């Protein structure tokens, strides 16, 4: 990297915030996947104004900018493509700017850790519901850029449902403010929706104004064990048709449970094919109790082998800890895992599970199934060893079949991780050429020089 650019970047963000040693570049070359791509430079701006100046400098040299937060993404969306570029890491922009208790909003910089934001607003009796499993190691900016989901989204909706306004640095360095505190706003196009989930390809989100709701006062959590995975998936639909909306309805299959048990020793049942983690929450204790009891009854009717309702906060914490640690625990089984996040209409859950198991059986590699069954969003994880070429070849074919199964059942490629680089080969099948053409036009309108996270979503 030429030293003139380093100097000019240092003038904008300060010397300590420009990184270029081989060691620094090596650790900014990955995210939460196995993919890697080395940047030429890493810049950590501290303000929107600095981001704007960094973008202006990059635009002069036409160097790609790759936005990044805590690097926990699961689609290789925040790592450089071959040819490098500048990683623009927003982790230092971690200030909560305002909590407005009357309008129930919070304004925060992009680098605020999602769990920190939740804790702060909860001190004011408010609640920010989106809860990706990475809440403690992902940032608001990244959550918005990928429109992150999470277990609670069944009842509360996804990240995008909470975005009221954004501060976005555009490809030429201009600073755009979208939306605002009004809850209703149809003045012009909905630019919040345009930037949400755009994976840093249309603009760089530096601040967000988020809608909050009242903090639920009561929550009850149950774990239902099923001898057959089929029964568990039937129970999901029965629960959702019963006139209640649980906050959470999570499915974990046997391999997932075994992995958690090996990692955490929580005393979960390892001899059943599937468990459902169900949570009801709300402002009224009796309603919450009634809902969890309804869930209890339905699970039993659908053949649950046992249903336990957590009696204490510690027990509830244990169940949640289990759920959150599934994905990383899988690494105990194999050196590599590839976790997808296909989403199908919930009526298709039993069928998609049948097809996933068939794919696993025909290739002879395990697919662990867990996820947000309530909203049809499943995480089939293929376990493998990348050092064995024949396994890697199988994995690539299996991924294709998993996506094909989802699309055939009216589903989609990704519910919450995004496309990044990993899902590009399947994009056309999912969206069709007209949609892709239109989306590329939007991209070139906003980023004519193609410097904002190039090579993500669409092949470069």
């Amino acid at each position, binding site marked *: 990297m030429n030293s003139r650019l380093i100097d000019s970047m240092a003038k904008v963000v300060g010397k300590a915030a420009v*990184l270029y*040693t*081989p*060691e*620094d570049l*090596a*650790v*900014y070359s*990955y*995210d*939460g*996947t*196995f993919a890697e791509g080395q940047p030429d430079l890493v810049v*950590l701006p501290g303000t929107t104004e600095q981001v704007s100046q960094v973008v202006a400098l990059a635009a002069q040299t036409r160097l790609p900018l790759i936005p990044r937060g*805590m*690097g*926990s993404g699961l689609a290789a969306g925040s790592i450089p493509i071959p040819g490098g570029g500048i990683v623009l*890491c927003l*982790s*230092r922009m*971690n200030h909560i700017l305002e909590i407005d208790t009357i309008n129930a909003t919070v304004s925060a910089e992009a*680098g605020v*850790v999602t*769990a920190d934001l939740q804790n702060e607003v909860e001190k004011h009796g408010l609640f920010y519901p989106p809860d990706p499993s*990475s809440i*403690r*190691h*992902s940032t608001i900016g990244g959550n918005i850029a990928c429109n992150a989901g999470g277990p609670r989204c069944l009842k509360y909706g996804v990240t995008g449902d909470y975005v009221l306004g954004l501060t976005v640095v555009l490809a030429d360095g201009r600073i755009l403010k979208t939306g605002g505190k009004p809850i209703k706003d149809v003045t012009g196009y909905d630019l919040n929706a345009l930037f949400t989930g755009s994976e840093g390809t249309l603009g760089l989100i530096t601040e967000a104004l988020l809608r909050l709701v009242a903090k639920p006062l009561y929550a009850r959590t149950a774990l239902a064990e099923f001898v057959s995975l089929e029964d568990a998936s039937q129970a999901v639909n029965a629960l959702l048709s019963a006139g209640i909306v649980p906050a959470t309805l999570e499915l974990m299959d046997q391999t997932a449970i075994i992995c958690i048990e090996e*990692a*955490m020793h929580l005393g979960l049942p390892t001899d059943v094919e599937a468990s459902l983690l169900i949570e009801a929450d709300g402002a009224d204790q009796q309603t919450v109790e009634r809902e969890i009891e309804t869930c209890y009854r339905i699970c039993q009717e659908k053949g649950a082998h046992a249903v336990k309702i957590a009696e204490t906060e510690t027990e509830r914490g244990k169940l949640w800890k289990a759920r959150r*640690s599934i*994905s*990383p*625990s*899988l*690494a*105990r089984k194999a*050196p*590599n*895992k590839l976790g997808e996040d296909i989403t199908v209409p919930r009526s298709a859950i039993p069928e998609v599970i049948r097809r996933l198991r068939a794919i696993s059986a025909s290739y002879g590699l395990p697919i662990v199934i867990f996820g947000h069954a309530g909203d049809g969003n499943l995480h089939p994880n293929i376990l493998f060893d990348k050092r064995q070429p024949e396994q890697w070849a199988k994995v690539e074919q299996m991924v294709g079949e998993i996506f094909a199964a989802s699309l055939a059942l009216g589903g989609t490629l990704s519910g919450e991780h995004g496309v990044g680089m990993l899902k590009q080969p399947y994009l056309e099948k999912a969206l069709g050429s007209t949609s892709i053409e239109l989306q590329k036009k939007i991209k070139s309108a906003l980023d004519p020089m193609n410097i904002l996270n190039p090579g993500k979503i669409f092949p470069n």
Partner: protein
Amino acid sequence: MVNNLQIAEFMDQTTGIEKPAESSYLNCIRCGLCLAVCPTYREYLKETASPRGRVALARKGLDGQLELTPNLIEQMYGCFACMACNELCPVGIRPADLALSMRHVQEQLHPTLWKQALFSGMIPRPGRMEAAVLPLRLYQMLGIRRLIYALGLNRILPNKIRDLEAMLPRIPQRPLRQTLPGVTEARGESRYRVGFFLGCAQNLLFSEESAAAVRVLARNGCTVITPRNAVCCGMPARGYGRLDLVKSQAMHNIALFEQSQVDIIVTDCATCGSTLKEYGTFLSNDAQWAARAAAFSSKVRDVSEFLAEIPIERPQGRLETRVTYHDPCHLRRAQKIWQQPRSLMGLINGLELIELPEADWCCGSAGSQLITHYETSTRVLDRKMENLAGTQAQVVASGCPGCQMQLLSGARRRELPIRVVHPVTLLDEAYEASYE
């Protein structure tokens, strides 16, 4: 549970270098969970200062993708070894241990002379250590320290010197090793024959605390044997990559305590305790020593751990004071001891125990980080002091000399009137109060 630490190192036959095993880094899935709990990441918000970053660098360094440059090794020294990442990692990677192993790799490839002098010639020799502390003792005894404080000269010292000076507790007139009897008889019937491992910092700087710990043990039926020729547990050498010296110090201490024929080996230093409990692991590949080391380690207890295991006398005296407790990493994470000191203090009448927010977050001491990584260390310390100030406690208890010195420095830096003390010293005071 004896010990949760595992040093997965093996001898690479082609190079003759002891290295971390592939399993200790290969399966890192880079999820990033560890970033949330790492004190250095949370201060700098840079991947290079994170556990995941250190694992990536170790991996690339070991498989040849990166050179083991001074900068790469510096990232390994940047780790405070608080082990929060070890405890959290669902995959079972131990990034903090890996950072220590990498320091060891480096020392084998490029040994540093001053480390040889310090960790071999000085630290394991109690006599030389005592001589080295003499200037500090004179500094205090001749009244220079009082004078500096009285004239406010400490305020005009450069920050780093001022904060280092402030780490010093009131230095005892003589090292405890010279005054503590080889055998302290139990008060009343002797029920346990306990070996007391007197650590360097306790001997030289916190003598009164160790004297108090021995009194508490004796009061509760222990005949306490304190071998005078014990040498440094080995943690400083381990921290600086000299696992070879740790092993030779371990052998010396193992043989010494074998002679004392004790049932149990107690220490009041969190760091010594965690290291002594690791002797079995360090020497597991040594045919001659493996069994002896394992037997030694299985006898080791932190003083609070041991007192919680045996029936003890309830103190009759009262300590009307508001106390909070800071968890030393070497107790909470390395030894899983956190309830015991709290319940011991809970026995004291009048004592109000306030839970410290983030009690198990590293204080930034990490042995010598205040000296070697001053800026990071003080930033981590400031977070601790902020939490401490919020409790409005008059006393902060912590069973680790490293933490105590760091907290002393933090309290003076912030001009926070708070006493820093070992929890067992409070127990001793409650006993003595009832005696009066």
